[in-house]
């Protein structure tokens, strides 16, 4: 058997073919067909553009809006409504293969009659959560828009209001935020961190009323044994502000610092509450703290956490993943039960799929678009003037300083899911062609801006 191989006539063809193959590979290596510019190049390109004045190109805006209308029709299809999804309609989940669902009576009754906005909207701000927003002072400018859209239930506490504003008309929420359940990692992490040390709790005008610590009033410094701290964490602190009139008020972000020896632990309160460890003035986020546990147990924490968004719509991709439907509907039930000011809008899977296809044809290759790009596309279809803030997926800002990933924490996303730099380049292109305005610099001083 083995002898047969030797009897095969030797020709020059394989040698020539492999040589050709190697040559082609080398060629492609040296002159690639398409290569994504790396972070430094993008930043350089952005810097070149920085000095120039930006003007809205109304024809370009109209052209782009026309493109979007043709492919996706945001005005009609943005959310699930009684008009665009009649009862009995079969819809395919856009984030999954092979799964569909039929709109039944109960689901149908949750939809609004039509898209509940006054279209077209005038001035819109779309706020991403990039770390570039930190110390930007853009809050005023963002709030000046008629319609403010935000991504993924970002924290809007006092601490950030100067940079990100307060106003919200639409905020997206990913079902995964609601699905978080307590895990033991945080406990072990904290145990490790606390070591055998005594934890000193420094309370800046705040009182911790947990089960173990809640009994007595605490002054500025208190002692807690390390075994007690992680324990109460799992069940959540009840933070209350203790002012001079001995009147209890809820604690605000950064009001409390738990210092662990040389370390400090900072708790920030918002939808995504993160537990941060200050080590030599460097923030390292440990874990999410407030857990909604799919809203099957207590629901008050969730209702309280979305109170910051006042009268706004919570936009949920309920029909993108099979696992997301239950939690999203539960958010609706929860908010309705409590008579909350926020209302839930369900994203239309057809719209999301169409937008995905649209950007794919423009050359974004990712498993899934980021929420931010979905929102920007929707805003371009719904609004006349769009300004976007906080869309900056890089680790350095324009001046070469390192910045955190989000303005509120530094949790890096799973790599390979979203193609952030590609998305950024597309948005940057739109900025350059005058379709939308991308705010990357620090906003001007509000006084000079108003006079100008």
């Amino acid at each position: 058997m083995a002898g047969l191989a030797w009897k095969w006539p030797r020709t020059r063809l394989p040698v020539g073919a492999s040589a050709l193959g190697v040559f082609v590979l080398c060629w492609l290596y040296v002159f690639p067909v398409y290569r994504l510019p790396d972070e430094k190049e993008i930043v350089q390109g952005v810097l070149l553009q920085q000095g120039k004045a930006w003007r809205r190109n109304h024809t370009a805006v109209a052209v782009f809006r026309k493109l979007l209308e043709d492919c996706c029709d945001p005005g009609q299809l943005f959310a699930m409504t009684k008009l665009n999804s009649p009862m009995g309609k079969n819809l395919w989940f856009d984030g999954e293969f092979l799964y569909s669902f039929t709109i039944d009576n109960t689901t149908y009754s949750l939809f609004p009659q039509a898209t509940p906005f006054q279209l077209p909207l005038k001035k819109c701000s779309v706020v991403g959560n990039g770390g570039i927003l930190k110390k930007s002072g853009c809050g005023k400018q963002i709030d000046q828009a008629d319609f403010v859209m935000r991504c993924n239930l970002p924290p809007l506490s006092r601490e950030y209001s100067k940079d990100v504003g307060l106003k919200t008309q639409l905020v997206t929420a990913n079902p995964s935020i609601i699905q978080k359940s307590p895990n033991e990692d945080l406990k072990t992490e904290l145990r490790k961190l606390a070591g055998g040390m005594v934890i000193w709790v420094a309370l800046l005008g705040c009182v911790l009323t947990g089960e173990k610590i809640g009994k007595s009033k605490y002054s500025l410094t208190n002692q807690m044994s390390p075994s007690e701290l992680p324990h109460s964490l799992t069940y959540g602190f009840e933070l209350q502000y203790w002012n001079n009139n001995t009147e209890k008020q809820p604690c605000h972000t950064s009001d409390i610092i738990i210092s662990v020896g040389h370390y400090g632990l900072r708790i920030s309160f918002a939808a995504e509450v993160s537990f941060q460890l200050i080590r030599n003035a460097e923030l390292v986020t440990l874990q999410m703290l407030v857990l909604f546990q799919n809203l099957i147990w207590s629901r008050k924490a969730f209702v309280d956490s979305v109170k910051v968004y006042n009268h706004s719509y919570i936009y949920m991709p309920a029909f993108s993943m099979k696992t997301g439907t239950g939690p999203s509907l539960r958010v609706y039930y929860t908010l309705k039960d409590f008579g909350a000011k926020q209302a839930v809008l369900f994203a239309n899977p057809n719209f999301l799929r169409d937008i995905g296809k649209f950007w794919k044809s423009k050359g974004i290759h990712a498993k899934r678009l980021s929420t931010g790009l979905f929102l920007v596309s929707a805003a371009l279809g719904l609004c006349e003037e769009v300004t976007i803030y906080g869309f900056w997926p890089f680790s350095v800002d324009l001046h070469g300083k390192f910045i955190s990933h989000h303005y509120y924490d530094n949790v890096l996303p799973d790599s390979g899911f979203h193609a952030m730099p590609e998305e950024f380049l597309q948005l940057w292109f739109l900025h350059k062609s005058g379709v939308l305005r991308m705010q990357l610099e620090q906003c001007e001083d509000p006084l000079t801006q108003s006079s100008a």
Partner: protein
Amino acid sequence: MGYTDPSSGRDLLGNRTLFFIFICAFAVVTLLQQILYGRNYLKRGLQFSWQNGEELANWSGTFNFTDDGAVKSGSDTGTRYFEFYEGPLEYNSTKCLELRQDIIAVKVLSMVKQTELFDRWKSLQMCKWEMNVTEANIFKSTLSRCCNAPAFLFTTQKNTPLGTKLKYEVDTSGIFHINQEIFKMFPKDMPYHRSQFRKCAVVGNGGILKNSGCGREIDSADFVFRCNLPPISEKYFTDVGVKTDVVTVNPSIITERFHKLEKWRKPFYDVLQVYENASVLLPAFYNTRNTDVSIRVKYVLDDFESQQAVYYFHPQYLINVSRYWLGQGVRAKRISTGLILVTAALELCHEVHLFGFWAFPMNPSGIFITHHYYDNVKPRPGFHAMPSEIFNFLHMHSKGILRVHTGTCGCC
């Protein structure tokens, strides 16, 4: 022919053996029956059957109701007392003693025709009821030995410390680990103590309550138990009253009517609001399916900042109570919530009044009634042994341990 199967001669599980096993089983069952029912059966039962010999023909059919049968029985034996009826008789009059003895004499439900039992019960109605303190105390002390409601009715932080591995009542293999979060839901200690209340009313949901006008009498009690989230709206108010101190909720209701509380919660909360400050009592640790739903009830009330307390039956208490009643002849897959509440009430209250406990298709006068006072949905057959529970109550009534109301209520 050279080879024979060694087991062929023995006929392993063949016809003969099966037949033998069958006969043995039959014999064992008969023997057990003799042991369990036998004594009473021989002593009183036969005597009875001889006495009303003409009824021997349809003696076995306890649930064999026909219209004419009911009417007939109403007219023959029962009425003879009504001929000289002049107001309620004294408790200790000889007539009443006799009537009570008539009921106590019926040791097993199937011993007499049901209509016969109804007649005796109806006759007894003309007697005043009084509590027989000695009998009641004996009974209560038995209960305190077996079940001890003042300490074990609910799961409390005292009787179920943190880290307890709680055994379910039916899913005996299932164990629930009491963690901090669940532990915090329990009350510190039992909120009630022994004989705390003077007069208690336990309100069942029997159709007999309809048009009874017992509302005011129920409301006049110091403590009112209700079963299974009954409606107490204006429509029923005159018959069932509004006062509620403890209301039980069966998790199956939550599962069916409220989607396990995974969707809307406000409707359920609104239903509970009707009972104002009543505590909600749930069999959370009856089986594994009940736990999540029951715990969610606590969350719902907390979320809506309600003042209502949520308590859970202690599974051991449930086991003890059903074991006790099994000994008294209540054979069922599960004893009813009503029976558990009555048992608890007997320990918590001085005097216990039962309303709406009547699980027969007709009232004592033979008129057909609905199953519940608010609907006519029949329960799953073979799950509860209602007639036998009621029968026990009638016995206890005759002994003066508690009072069963089956007629209309005058004013109090």
